[in-house]
């Protein structure tokens, strides 16, 4: 079995099933995290082989929880699901400054930037980060996705985000749709 087949037909397909079960409330966060851990361990083995055989990821995603917010569970789930759909994920962690998001997106040539916040008090930092992309003159280069418990579609529209999804599974689906639309 080729490395690409193991990735596409086994790991990515499995994470797709896990994501769908999560979306349908058939499994919950502990099961998602354990599945994602297995995926991550599999990728650790496969990644050098994929690089050696010239297989490219479906896209590059820079992700983090915005400045002032230390919560990571939602962001971690999104990162895992993004990896699960075949993207290379650059996880900046929590309490990430807008400058760091811009710098990392530019450095790695990201396709997608995902901004997460759990608190109503830190939610405005998502908007501030998008403004910093605008000020830096690179807003148009990146598809900016937002999420987190207090975030809504209305809020996402107000701050000029490109996409909002209510959970990690749908975030990965939306990212995949965007990446595939660009590939056409």
């Amino acid at each position, binding site marked *: 079995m080729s490395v690409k087949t193991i990735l596409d037909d086994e790991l990515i397909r499995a994470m797709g099933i896990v994501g769908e079960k999560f979306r349908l*409330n058939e499994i919950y*966060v502990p099961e998602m995290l354990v599945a994602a851990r297995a995926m991550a361990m599999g990728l650790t083995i496969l990644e050098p082989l994929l690089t050696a055989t010239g297989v490219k990821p479906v896209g590059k995603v820079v992700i983090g929880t915005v400045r002032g917010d230390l919560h990571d*569970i939602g962001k971690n789930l999104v990162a895992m699901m993004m990896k699960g759909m075949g993207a290379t994920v650059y996880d900046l962690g929590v309490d990430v400054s807008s400058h760091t998001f811009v710098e990392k997106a530019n450095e790695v040539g990201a396709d997608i930037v995902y901004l997460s916040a759990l608190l*109503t*008090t830190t*939610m405005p930092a998502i908007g501030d980060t998008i403004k910093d992309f605008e000020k830096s003159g690179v807003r148009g280069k990146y598809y900016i996705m937002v999420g987190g418990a207090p975030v809504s579609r209305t*809020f996402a529209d107000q701050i000029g985000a490109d996409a909002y999804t209510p959970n990690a599974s749908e975030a990965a689906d939306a990212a995949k749709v965007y990446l595939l639309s660009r590939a056409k």
Partner: protein
Amino acid sequence: MMTQKELFYNRLAGRPVDKIPNLNIVMLFAAKYTGVKYGQFCSDYRYLAEAQEKTAEDFGIDILSTMSDPFRETSDYGASIVFAEDDLPICKKALLTGPEDFSKIKIWEPLESTRILDRIRAIEMFKRDMGEKYPILGWVEGPLAEFMDLTTVSDGMMMLLDEPEAVSEVMERITEQAILCAKAQIEAGADVIGIGDVVASLIGAGTYREQVRPLEKKMIDAIHAMGAKTKLHICGNINHLLSDIVDTGSDIVDIDHMVDFEKAIALSAGKCSISGHMNPVKVLLQGTPQDVKNWTKYCVEKGSNTNFISGGCEVPKMTPHENLRAVDVQLSREKESGLKNW
């Protein structure tokens, strides 16, 4: 005119009230409204108590709460908590990184602790200042929430599946400690003990039923035996857990905005009171006073004669004052309009 305490107990029993009690949860909002830095609010009971008393009086909130942050017990177990000047305290390093650390969880005496003792002092101050008038809400972390506070949510959730027996054993100890903390708070004057088990919304019904609910029930039964009421707070989407949660025996169950309110009211009939279920962000923070009044009216009309009104979780810090006031305005108006459920 009934006191807030009379309102609370009458409503809980389904007896007539002058106003349906407003049990909105205010923490960051109360600190900001009263000009208190949140670091002080969390670390010095005098700031917390003064902020809660003033906010309750000014906004028609019918309970005095000792809630502040998730890390009071965590700190007293020995974790290092970092206080910000005007923000939530944080735990930068988990005390438990795996089952090999679980033996670190030892039982301690609440009156010899630091942060739980500060909460006990807040209760004593409430009791002294307004204890005749208002019900006083003490607080403990639920078994699952405290376990996650000690481990981090990501790691704790995986341990729940990887090491269920070891996790259950440590959650038993956490439960024993929470009962001691509740006892000290009841002896200081708390009328109600809130049990915050927020992360339970992230687990499935089977795991909740097997590993968490028996321990929550143990806490609830112990608190009842000490003569206080209980308020179980699991914010987030608990539609899948509702039938199990209303059977815990808690007197009040908080219901967040994404939960099917009418189903919760139906399932809770004869078992417990429901408190909720306004969207804290879309309605209280981002809505208009009229939106808040509409949702208050909805919760009254679709509720029962024992339900309380509140946001599904904490009132956001930046909530416009007129929005929070609109809850009380509408509740007072509802009584005059002679609608059902009074």
